């Protein structure tokens, strides 16, 4: 049987995490190739709707990466992220989708290595969870 290769969506904020991802690339850090990066202006612009749409359409895992608290380009944008993403993850759990398919973390522009580490860990975690059951569901 083929090994399960999860399909993962990573929302990265423009000011920190996307630059962090860039740095990881420039430094040629090895990472699993499962991640599709979506650049957003702020982690706070990742509405829970995006996550729900992705998950209900069969994405195996969603990563939300933003600036560390205190470093937000918009001052308090990531405060909002810090509150709403855990709530969204829990809600997924309530309808039977493992909340561990959603992970929130902070990656600064200088943290290429952290980006590598978060991505690698998350891909491993999602691999353990197996494919998103929504793939098999037809409404």
């Amino acid at each position, binding site marked *: 049987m083929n090994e399960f290769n999860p399909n993962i969506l990573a929302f990265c904020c423009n000011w920190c995490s996307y630059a962090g991802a860039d740095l990881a690339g420039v430094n040629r850090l090895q990472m699993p190739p499962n991640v599709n990066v979506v650049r957003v202006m702020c982690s706070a612009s990742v509405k829970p*709707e995006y996550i*729900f*749409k992705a998950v*209900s359409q069969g994405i195996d895992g969603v990563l939300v990466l933003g600036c560390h608290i205190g470093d937000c380009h918009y001052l308090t944008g990531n405060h909002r992220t810090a509150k709403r993403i855990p*709530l*969204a993850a829990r809600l997924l759990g309530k*309808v039977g989708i493992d909340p561990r398919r959603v992970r929130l973390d902070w990656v600064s522009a200088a943290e290429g290595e952290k980006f590598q580490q978060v991505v690698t860990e998350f891909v491993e975690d999602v691999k353990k969870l197996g494919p998103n059951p929504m793939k098999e569901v037809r409404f």
Partner: protein
Amino acid sequence: MRLAFEEKGADYLLATRDEHGNVAPVLLKKGDEPGTLRVDVPYQMAMILTKVNKFVKEGKIAVVARRCDERAIAELVKRDLLDQSRLNLIGLACSAEQVKECRCTDPCPSVVDFGECAEPSGDDASVARLLDMSLSDRLGFWIAQFRKCNKCFGCTLNCPVCFCDECLLEDKTFTPEKGIPPGLAFHLIRAIHLADKCVECGECERSCPVDIPLLSLRKMVSQDMKELFDYVSGDSERRSPLLTTLEGDPMEDDANVC
């Protein structure tokens, strides 16, 4: 109930009464013939109030409100969608039967003008049963429920705290399904939008033509809000934690964002 006008000094009374062999919501003006007023059929008066309020711009409105209406009104007042000074609440206590149906933990209005407060309901057995299920069983349960949805928008339209003019659920970006049923995202989006304002009145579940247990879903989200932020919606003092910083300072001026 005529006393509402004199005692509370209101210009209008929003209540329910007998009409054409049915029970109808009615907005009475001072001096109108009241007919046979009724309090036993649970119309969600807060929802009707928001609709009426769009047209009645002046004068005080007295509303027959149950505890959940009262809490919904508190949420709306906080968001500047209703003017507290123009409202008079006439407290209506729910019957024990109604409390049981809603699995209501907070049935008693702050001032009781009608009825007697029933005992609050204990833990919600249907929520407990859902939380006991394995993840895959729970997903199976909800998929089977959501598959029945025929997108009437009743849960949204009858919700006392759903107030956006342009509803995101009508946006094809997030609910791209053509036809019915709408997919999982439809119900999740609605659940998260209500996270910090749902007062668990149960109107969504009551108006669902196909009996999707929406109140159970709401109760689970409310439980999360309590665990994560120690917040209970309907609190007239506290701002929604989703609209404050981690330290609890207000984050935006426009508090009435969805």
